[in-house]
């Protein structure tokens, strides 16, 4: 089971938020309700849900304005946003999508349409989360690579490496400090033969 998707539902009409929240909870979403635009923005910026369903007409900050704020915010730009509207006009829909909404729902919300559109959103939000995780992993790996990259001054005889501050470190110590690699100590066949000879000659 994947972790439940966090969804914000923002609408000043309580009958709408109750209907939406009940449906979303049935689909294993973790739902938070906001009754106006300012409360919605507060939740969006602090909890960063994967999806937001925003009413077009809300007190304090309306849906399209919230959409624009989300898209301009570095950490929220990838959020899936559904605009909720009871205005059926084409111009409004275009304005909503231009403001940065991914999709829209018309009130009163039809159950099957809600299910279909929310599941599209869940799929996109999940992909977005995975993508961000992968980017994070790759960035971390890249950092490791750059730390071990470059010209390493090594002693031709003892194989120690010159580290920061002009100190010399054993190679294994240096690598352990500058990468995720760990060492398990063993002996190679060539060295084994030499050590055995030393023993036998009473060394």
């Amino acid at each position: 089971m994947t972790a439940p998707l966090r969804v914000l539902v923002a609408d000043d009409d309580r009958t709408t938020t109750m209907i939406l929240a009940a449906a979303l909870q049935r689909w294993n979403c973790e739902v938070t309700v906001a009754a106006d635009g300012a409360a919605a923005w507060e939740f969006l910026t602090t909890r960063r849900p994967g999806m937001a369903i925003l009413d077009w007409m809300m007190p304090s900050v309306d849906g399209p304005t919230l959409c624009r704020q989300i898209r301009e915010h570095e950490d929220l730009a990838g959020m899936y946003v559904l605009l909720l509207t009871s205005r059926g006009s084409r111009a409004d829909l275009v304005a909503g999508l231009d403001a940065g909404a991914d999709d829209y729902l018309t009130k009163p919300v039809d159950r099957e349409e809600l299910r279909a559109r929310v599941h599209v959103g869940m799929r996109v939000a999940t992909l977005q989360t995975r993508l961000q995780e992968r980017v994070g992993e790759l960035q971390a790996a890249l950092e490791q690579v750059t730390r071990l990259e470059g010209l390493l001054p090594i002693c031709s005889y003892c194989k120690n490496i010159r580290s920061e501050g002009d100190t010399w470190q054993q190679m294994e110590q240096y690598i352990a400090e500058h990468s995720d690699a760990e060492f398990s100590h063993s002996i190679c066949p060539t060295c084994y033969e030499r050590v055995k000879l030393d023993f036998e000659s009473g060394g």
Partner: protein
Amino acid sequence: MQGDRERCLEAGMDGYLSKPIDRFELYVAVEGTPGKAGEMAPAESELFDRAALLDRLDGDTNLLEQILAVFLADCPARLAAVDAAMTTRHAAGLADAAHALKGAALNLSANRLADVAGALESAGHRGDLDAAPALVASLHREVTLLMELLA
């Protein structure tokens, strides 16, 4: 436009519709203002379509009762907002207040109330404050009928 309505009615027309056609205005023009005094009591399903709402809630009767309770609790404040906008003759405020009531009524499948609220919202958007008082009166009657039915 305001003057057009009077000129049409004076010329003997029975009604008046402005283009583009708004479905709520059309409804009122053809059916008459819903909830007129003296009209026969409407069928229950016209006031509130319980089956449609229950279907939308996936058969959850518990949730249905909660939503009705919330609707009834919020209704007086929404009506008061309509009345306040009417008193101050604030057309945009009237449209917003009627819009809020329409949205909740549509959610409930309270279709007659939604129609009247929708007609009032359109009147507000047009700035037609002369058509509004009759619609506001209808709105009050529809809300009363609905509250009696649901109480």
